[in-house]
């Protein structure tokens, strides 16, 4: 068989990514040791050994492959994320198998564990984790062994920053190839001239914020294990929980409000974090995207709170705060409860985290409330952060661009106009390129949203409304994880496959996956 130079590049870098996956699996063996779940160690070892051997083989055999170009970078990102999610599902499958057969002294499995005997469910959980989606096949997350609870949180934490960012940080490879891959993973902004330094700084910032988030959540009253897991998945804007009803389980005002800054931190681009930590705090309002993050979150929260009040979703006679030291009654109590849930759910949606405090979004919340949340999921927050959606910068370009075009009609043909974006004055050609990129991504996003919605409508039957279906697909494709109750192990097979595709394309901003599919159908050679 003839292996083309393009295939060699892809195989070599896929091998590197699999080695990085093996490294995080080996590290995770500490968890069953600490929690006394020794029966899970063989499963974790095998899960780590398989990608390690395969990855090592590919990286060694194709070590002399050339540096990836733009085309290869996109294909590597798409295949890499697919491969990582596929092999990342092994711990779910193998731990479930170990428990099902009672191997190595494993306790009897619950139905929640047995779900993962189906390899597709294990793959779904892994894809949802790495892409930071948070939709789950687990019915009762609190019944999962600590090993799997950790693995779910850890893959969201890693996936939030990016698998390629992780690979570059571990297997440092200076040069243009790393930059190409970095950009293919839906990232573009650099902190330092060197891409290796950039990704290491990203990890430094992420570590600092993770430790702070754990401490903050623990101080708010969350048990330590919950604080560790929820800080990781909250900061990564992933949304997996270790409790049965997500954050609603705690039913704590302090925890709800402590999670807001955690999710907001995950919504801001890393280069802005870097500058702000250096003392340049004005970047929080001079940077276009960050300014829009705060504005979008504020407007969304106010709108959602207003709809919740109008619909009486949280009408209550009394509510107690600060351990009962403050008691609100009647209208103030209703307004506070609506604000509490509105703020949390909008920030959770727009940051693409997917934590839930409202237990019944699908039935208790009105259609207009669901639409507001779905809009948050569709737009997302800042590019260069850990969030999904089309990203605020594109929403800003499309909004300003539309206004620019409308205003154009009122100017004479001879007028020379400039388009300003984030303090930059763009030429007509540059502005058109920005509009085009934003419009294409947004169009494709809607196209696949509709495709996913169609598949879901056909397969889930009449038990869910159209707004439930659109909400669920937007949640999967925006890598959010809020659910109206459609996603679960009993989902029809076509719906699971469609959601796997939605999560995959959502994380990579669609284009790399379409490039891969085009490459599979027509070959990876460019036009000659």
């Amino acid at each position: 068989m003839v292996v083309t130079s393009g295939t060699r590049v892809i195989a070599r870098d896929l091998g590197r990514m699999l080695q990085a996956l093996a490294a995080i699996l080996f590290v995770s063996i500490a968890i069953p040791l600490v929690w006394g779940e020794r029966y899970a160690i063989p499963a974790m070892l095998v899960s780590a050994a398989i990608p390690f051997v395969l990855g090592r083989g590919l990286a060694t055999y194709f070590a002399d492959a050339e540096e990836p170009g733009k085309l290869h970078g996109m294909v590597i990102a798409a295949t890499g994320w697919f491969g990582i999610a596929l092999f990342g599902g092994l711990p779910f499958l193998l731990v479930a198998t170990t428990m099902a057969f009672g191997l190595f002294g494993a306790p009897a499995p619950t139905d929640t564990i047995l779900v993962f005997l189906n390899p597709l469910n294990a793959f779904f959980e892994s894809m949802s984790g790495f892409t930071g989606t948070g939709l789950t096949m687990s019915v009762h997350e609190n019944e999962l062994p600590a090993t799997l609870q950790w693995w779910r949180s850890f893959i969201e934490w890693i996936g939030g920053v990016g698998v390629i960012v992780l690979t570059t940080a571990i297997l440092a490879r200076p040069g243009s190839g790393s930059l190409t891959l970095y950009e293919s993973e839906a990232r573009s902004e650099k902190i330092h001239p060197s891409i290796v330094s950039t990704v290491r700084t990203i990890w430094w910032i992420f570590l600092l914020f993770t430790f702070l988030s754990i401490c903050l959540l623990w101080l708010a009253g969350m048990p330590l294990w919950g604080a560790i897991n929820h800080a990781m998945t909250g900061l990564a804007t992933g949304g997996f929980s270790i409790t049965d009803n997500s954050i609603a389980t705690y039913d704590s005002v302090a925890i709800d409000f402590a999670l807001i800054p955690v999710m907001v931190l995950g919504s801001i681009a890393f280069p802005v974090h870097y500058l702000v930590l250096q003392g340049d705090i004005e970047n929080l309002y001079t940077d276009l995207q960050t300014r829009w993050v705060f504005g979008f979150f504020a407007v969304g929260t106010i709108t959602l709170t207003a709809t919740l009040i109008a619909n009486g979703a949280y009408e209550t006679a009394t509510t107690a705060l600060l351990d009962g030291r403050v008691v609100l009654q009647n209208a103030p109590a209703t307004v506070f409860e609506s604000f509490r849930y509105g703020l949390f759910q909008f920030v959770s949606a727009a940051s693409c985290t997917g934590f839930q405090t409202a237990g019944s979004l699908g039935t208790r919340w009105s259609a207009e409330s669901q639409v507001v949340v779905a809009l948050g999921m569709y737009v997302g927050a800042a590019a260069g952060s850990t969030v999904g959606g089309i990203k605020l910068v594109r929403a800003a370009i499309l909004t300003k661009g539309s206004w620019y075009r409308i205003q154009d009609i009122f100017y004479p043909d001879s007028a020379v106009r400039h388009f300003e974006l984030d303090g930059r004055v763009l030429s007509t050609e540059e502005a058109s390129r920005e509009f085009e990129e934003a419009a294409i991504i947004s169009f494709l996003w809607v196209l696949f949203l509709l495709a996913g919605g169609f598949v879901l409508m056909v397969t889930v039957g009449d038990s869910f409304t159209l707004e439930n279906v659109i909400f669920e697909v937007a949640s999967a494709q925006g890598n959010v994880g809020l659910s109206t109750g459609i996603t679960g192990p009993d989902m029809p097979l076509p719906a699971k496959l469609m959601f796997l595709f939605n999560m995959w394309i959502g994380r990579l901003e669609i284009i790399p996956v379409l490039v891969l599919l085009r490459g599979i159908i027509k070959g990876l050679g460019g036009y000659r």
Partner: protein
Amino acid sequence: MNLRDLPILRHLEDVGPTDPVFDLLVLLGPLVIALIALLGRTPVTMTTTTAYVLGFVAYFGWNATKTT
């Protein structure tokens, strides 16, 4: 001795925003969490954790004021 003279901080300095206090906070984070894991929710751990979070907030604020 200057904080920057510690070898591990010098390595972190190359990675982070060249600030020894933030570097120290990255190093202290796992120790604070380990302390909570060992002692549970006690006045000592509550005070230590509060000091860790407030230390970050206070230094962040002071740093921002100093720079701008």
